[in-house]
């Protein structure tokens, strides 16, 4: 634990109480302006993608494996929800309003914005050294003991100590690395694999996944994994101290360490 504390960037106590009297450049923020801006752009886009994605699913809440699938083929599984299209055998006697037009427009626009934002973020991650400094597990953490104790802390819903305001713990690092380098690339890949024009130029994008309907099914599951990350992420923010964590991500300053939510 002592080691963790020494890692903590400027200790929170060194932050002046009235920050407004001091030029902002003299205080190292918990999260740089770039990280804060890209974080909230990603948040907005993610919500837009989630809502519109769910909207698009209800127009055909059936999932298949392979190249093709339609109302007269056997689905891999189906969601037992009403549909926004009358021909889908949903088991419900009513049809939801069709909102696919704007949902598609917004889905793809958000995808573009989050893709370009993410690209900038990953480039900066490599060039600023933040990847190694913040996201790569520390050497001392790379042991079964450290790993199991971190898991135990999480399972006991233990509140993180003060030093963790200024750094990420092992599970957090692994989760962020997984989202940035596995889930986001996968969701983009499976999304592109559904585009008939894109795969005409790059057919391997879809054939490697087993077909266009497989890509759609995988896109659904990767989206669920991202949703699960979001839920855990938000739960952890509440557990660690909602005000301090939100303030750190909005203003850059986590606030006084003794603060309670």
């Amino acid at each position: 634990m002592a080691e963790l504390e020494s890692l903590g960037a400027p200790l929170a106590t060194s932050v002046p109480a009235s920050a407004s009297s001091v030029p902002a450049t003299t205080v190292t923020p918990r999260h740089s302006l770039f990280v804060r801006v890209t974080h909230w752009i990603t948040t907005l886009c993610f919500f837009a993608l989630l809502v519109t994605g769910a909207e698009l699913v209800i127009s055909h809440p059936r999932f298949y494996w392979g190249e093709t699938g339609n109302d007269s083929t056997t689905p891999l599984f189906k969601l037992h929800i009403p549909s926004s299209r009358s021909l889908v055998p949903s088991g419900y006697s009513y049809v939801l309003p069709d909102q696919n037009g704007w949902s598609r427009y917004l889905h793809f626009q958000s995808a573009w914005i989050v893709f370009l934002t993410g690209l900038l973020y990953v480039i900066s991650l490599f060039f600023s050294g933040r990847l190694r400094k913040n996201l790569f597990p520390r050497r001392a953490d790379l042991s079964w003991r450290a790993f199991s104790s971190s898991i135990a802390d999480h399972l006991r819903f233990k509140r993180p100590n003060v030093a963790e305001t200024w750094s990420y713990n092992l599970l957090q690092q692994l989760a962020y690395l997984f989202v940035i380098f596995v889930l986001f690339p996968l969701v983009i890949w499976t999304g592109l694999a559904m585009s008939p024009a894109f795969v005409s130029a790059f057919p391997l994008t879809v054939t490697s996944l087993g077909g266009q309907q497989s890509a759609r099914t995988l896109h659904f599951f990767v989206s669920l994994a991202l949703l699960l990350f979001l839920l855990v992420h938000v739960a952890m923010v509440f557990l660690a101290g909602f005000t301090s964590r939100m303030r750190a991500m909005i203003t850059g300053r986590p606030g006084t360490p003794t603060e309670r939510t």
Partner: protein
Amino acid sequence: MSDLSSRKLSRRKLITTGLAATAGAAGLGLAAHLAQKYGLVPPDHRGIYGLGETLTYASQRLLTRHSLAREFSSSQISKPPFANQIEPLTDEFKRLQAGGFAEWRLSVNGMVARPSSFSLDQLKSYPSHTQITMLQCEEGWSYIAEWVGVPLSRVLDVVGVLPQAKYVVYFSMEPDTWDSIDMADALHSQTFLTYGMNGHELPVGHGGPLRMRLPRQLGYKNVKFITQLTVTDDLKKFGKGLGAAAPEFGYAWYAGI
């Protein structure tokens, strides 16, 4: 840190930020100019979703100008009959259907050297082409079929498209149903005026007797019951100027995604 040095720092920051913003604005302006010049801006580029639409259309047009839609083997043709939604047929359609579509005409006009009208037999007299491709509905379902028809480029050759043409607008016998494609799609080798499917005449349920087939775009661009083609350089003259009926109902003009 003294006040002076921090003020210097902020002034330097201000100047670099200003320069970056100016360069960014100039870059965007240049990009917009080039995009317009090379036909990378879709007709529905205005409004809040214009940015995403333009990025999608421009990048896919750059990547896919000549790429071919995936073709499948005949064993992959979807076997079970599948649901397909069509609007109630008009009386005029029923009259033509009763006559075996012998009186069906495809008229071609606009920026062409020889405006013409084709019967189905005339269209079938050109060498027929076949493709086994997937039709994907924007809802999420799909099927693979064998499509037989005449490439649209062949018909455009016959009528002689003028060099300034940029789009082909196509009209259905269904009321208020029309769409358009750029010349890259119109001249693409897999863009068919389709009259046959899986070894038979194209069924009415699938758009028979004549359907536009664009395997690189979603189902709704593959308009059924085609009766007219108009070649143009300006989509603003049609409907609300959004290039198709679909954007008037909130759906994107470009459907390659």
